[in-house]
């Protein structure tokens, strides 16, 4: 079963996404990693997508689910600086305007 690592940095939780976000397996791994941090009370969560080469609409849907859950609880979902095709995809779908970049 695929698993993404999580860590606490200050008051933020960070999810390191490994591999591509384009399948039910990776989507489920993201959901579980998110829940681990959410259940610990973290409401500022950062996605590190530096290891992701491809993200499809399925993966984006999972990212947005994380965004909505945090927003409904006055939290915020952020992303580490993006690159490559993932950055292009985010800009195409205007997600770069939704998810602030965590430079830390």
């Amino acid at each position: 079963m695929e698993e993404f690592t999580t860590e606490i940095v200050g008051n933020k939780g960070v999810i390191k996404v490994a591999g591509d976000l384009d399948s039910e397996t990776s989507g489920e791994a993201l959901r579980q990693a998110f829940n681990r941090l959410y259940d610990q009370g973290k409401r500022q969560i950062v996605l590190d997508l530096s290891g992701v080469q491809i993200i499809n609409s399925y993966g984006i849907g999972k990212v947005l689910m994380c965004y909505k859950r945090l927003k409904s609880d006055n939290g915020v979902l952020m992303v580490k600086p993006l690159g490559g095709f993932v950055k292009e995809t985010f800009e195409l779908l205007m997600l770069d305007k939704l998810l602030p970049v965590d430079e830390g």
Partner: protein
Amino acid sequence: MKQSRCSPKLLLADTDLRTRDALCGPLRDAGWSIDYADEPATLAACANGKFYDVVVTDLDLLTKGGLSLLSKLRELNPSQALILLSNAPGVEPVPECLRSGAASFFCKPIDSQSLKQAISRVMEFSAAHNGTSGWLHYCTQAAAHYEFDSVQLAKERFVLPLIAELERGGKIDADTKLKLDLVISEALTNSLDHGNLELLSEWREEFDGQGIDRYSLVRKERLKDPAYAGRKIFLEAHYTPHELKIVLRDQGQGFLAASKPHAPDSCEPKMHGRGITIMNSIMDRVEYTARGTTLTLTKHLKG
């Protein structure tokens, strides 16, 4: 590749004596030096001991020898041109050519004149390019057909081999290959989820406290229900040097695409419609027909 200046050497591999009798004589008359193999072991032994300008082999014989035989042929002489012959009606030449790196493909019975012309073209190209030929360089038009089972497609990601061949042949760069692979993935997912399984996009927005959405739950159920899971998806890939066209057809009730690309997120983001936006941004044309059960994707290629 060193091209022989004496008699060019050809290895003909086929278990069918009629093929041997039909081809060896005319090819020798044309000035070729011919060796003949009628089983995988002989084919491997011949290839091991000698350099051949061209290997013409029956597909079944090559297949019987397994991938290791093909690998061995490639290892011994990477620039050796390979021509495939097939006896099986309806064999898809495109996937076979791509798998083997063949320069050409013929269905039997084959006349010696056609084979001689193909061999001449292969030799000219190999001499000019000093390396492996590859099927794509000789291909002026081709179509490959695939049929998918819904459950299988839900488990395994399908990668269209032709796209890797387009990159190898210099028709597209690595970035475009990545994007085309993504488009195929998006299109198949749409055909499966919204076509065959009839999942509604708005179900993605209904999720519980654990983040499990209704879409995922219903998807799992319907993949176990023969009424949905028994449906197929058909993919056709049509190649010409100037265009790649992919046609997908599902057996669902129809999937109505958004009439315009996804609108900017002014307030709450929608959880759906992004796949179509991605496809529209990468392909030159995206068309839905037959109530949305048929999707045609077109990408122009540099000639």
